[in-house]
């Protein structure tokens, strides 16, 4: 039983790689256009980061957070979101799939619908956001005086992966909504794109209802804020159990992924009983 599950999972992974590989090859046919968009995307996103630096030019701190610490939040949020966009954009682009009635084609194939949709729209030019987030993280390392223990350094990629899972989970939920109505997707997009901006600043600046919403309903606070409390050694969390803080992004990502997965399954079931 377990063997069969693992075999299927491996099959899914190899299929994903094959799909992505073919998309890469097709994008390399237009190399100049790709490079232009990559560079422009990078430059454009840099204006976001520049905005943070400009504000800290006039304000010393943001509720006790320094420019380096906010850059760290911003970097984490950007890399996670960029990776989600890169690896899961098929779900981000799902309204188009539904509008063009292409989901039937997906169901006609002897493979998981999830993997097929996930790999459906791989665009390498989305690397721009990841590069930009990495740059911000670099500045954050330079501007803060955090003691980067090996544990913390090892924890960093885990956090990024959790953030990616959270954002992809959100894409999946938005896509699931499309099985009922394509119109509402624009509302979902608000939180998707607003979500990176949200996660770029310390959680307590927001209204308490927004804090709760983004902690318990759409747990984007675990993308950057909670892991940063641990990684940056912020005083806010000094009397919380450290293991709880460290485990929280993992738990949030696992739980949210489960919710998104179940919702997706429910949505596909709905689609297969209504065909629309």
């Amino acid at each position, binding site marked *: 039983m377990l063997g069969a599950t693992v075999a299927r999972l491996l099959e899914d992974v190899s299929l994903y790689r094959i799909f992505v590989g073919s998309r890469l090859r097709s994008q390399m046919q237009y190399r*100049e*256009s790709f490079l*232009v*968009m990559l560079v*422009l995307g990078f*430059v*454009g996103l840099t*204006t*976001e980061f*520049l*905005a943070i630096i*400009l*504000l800290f*030019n*006039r*304000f010393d701190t*943001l*509720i006790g957070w320094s420019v380096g610490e906010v850059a760290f939040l911003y970097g984490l949020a950007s890399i996670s979101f960029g990776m989600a966009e890169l690896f899961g954009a098929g779900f981000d682009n799902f309204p188009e799939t539904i509008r063009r009635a292409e989901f039937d084609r997906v169901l006609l194939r002897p493979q998981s619908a999830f993997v097929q949709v996930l790999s459906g729209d791989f665009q390498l030019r989305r690397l721009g956001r990841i590069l930009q987030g990495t740059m911000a993280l670099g500045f954050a390392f330079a501007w803060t005086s955090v003691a980067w223990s090996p544990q913390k350094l090892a924890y960093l990629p885990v956090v990024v992966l959790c953030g990616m899972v959270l954002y992809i989970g959100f894409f999946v939920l938005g896509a699931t909504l499309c099985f009922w109505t394509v*119109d509402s997707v*624009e*509302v979902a*997009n*608000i*939180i998707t*794109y*607003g979500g990176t*901006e*949200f996660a770029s*600043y*310390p959680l307590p*600046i*927001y*209204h308490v209802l*927004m804090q709760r919403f983004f902690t318990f309903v759409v747990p984007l606070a675990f993308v950057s804020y909670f892991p940063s409390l641990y990684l940056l050694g912020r005083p806010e969390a000094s009397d919380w159990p450290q293991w709880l803080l460290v485990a929280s992004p993992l738990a949030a990502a696992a739980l949210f992924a489960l919710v998104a997965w179940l919702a997706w399954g429910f949505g596909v079931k709905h689609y297969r009983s209504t065909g629309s």
Partner: protein
Amino acid sequence: MRLYYEIARRSFDRFLTYRAATLAGTATNGFFGLMRTYLFIGFYGSQGTVSGWTEGDALAFVWLGQALLMPVFIFGWYDIALTIRSGDVVSDLSKPFDYYGFWLARDAGRALYHTLFRAIPTFLIGALLFRLSLSSDPAHWLGFLVSLVLAVWISFGLRFLANLAAFWLLDHRGAVYTLLFANGLFSGLLVPLNYWPDWAETVVRTLPFAGMVQIPVEIILGKSTGADLVVALLFQLGWAVGLMLAGRVVLALAVRKVVIQGG
């Protein structure tokens, strides 16, 4: 004139059909407005005035910025570039109207729609939820209206030029994309220009982008009064006219290129 009025009206009517998108868009502006509001509340903390602005000024700026975003159109706008790529531009150029005027009229119709159905609702959300400090002087409101019209005109002039670049560049998105980010940063939308380092502020304030968000907002906040207000409006007018002239020159070059090379 009648022709351009009709073109503008058509454009306005066309936008009227996108009601769902309008509501979703307003919700997006509202959400971003909320986030930026709390960002400035967080930054101000207990400080009174920073770079000449109080927290109330900053909040007013946030919501005015979210409101102006659509009428002034900070986003990517490819309408003309797409006609250049498809070749439809040739038939548009041979029609018996002024090409620049035709697109300006269309943009005016769009801007009016976005003012009524995007800007005002967005601003009302902010005004109902937070205390925004706005000028109570009717002259400032009148000045703001004039300034808003000029802001749209400047924005159009820049977008017109960026779109014409498609006559020369292979990738029609590049120029528009670049403009998009310049718009966001140098207009003051992302960070008001008064918070910038003094030397940078001085430089950026001479660029046309300042006339798109920073100047209209300063007028309605009551930050530029009397002679300053008139100078601000003249600055906008100067850029609007200058960009129009530049647009016409570039258009003439483009037309000559089309005539010589046959597109």
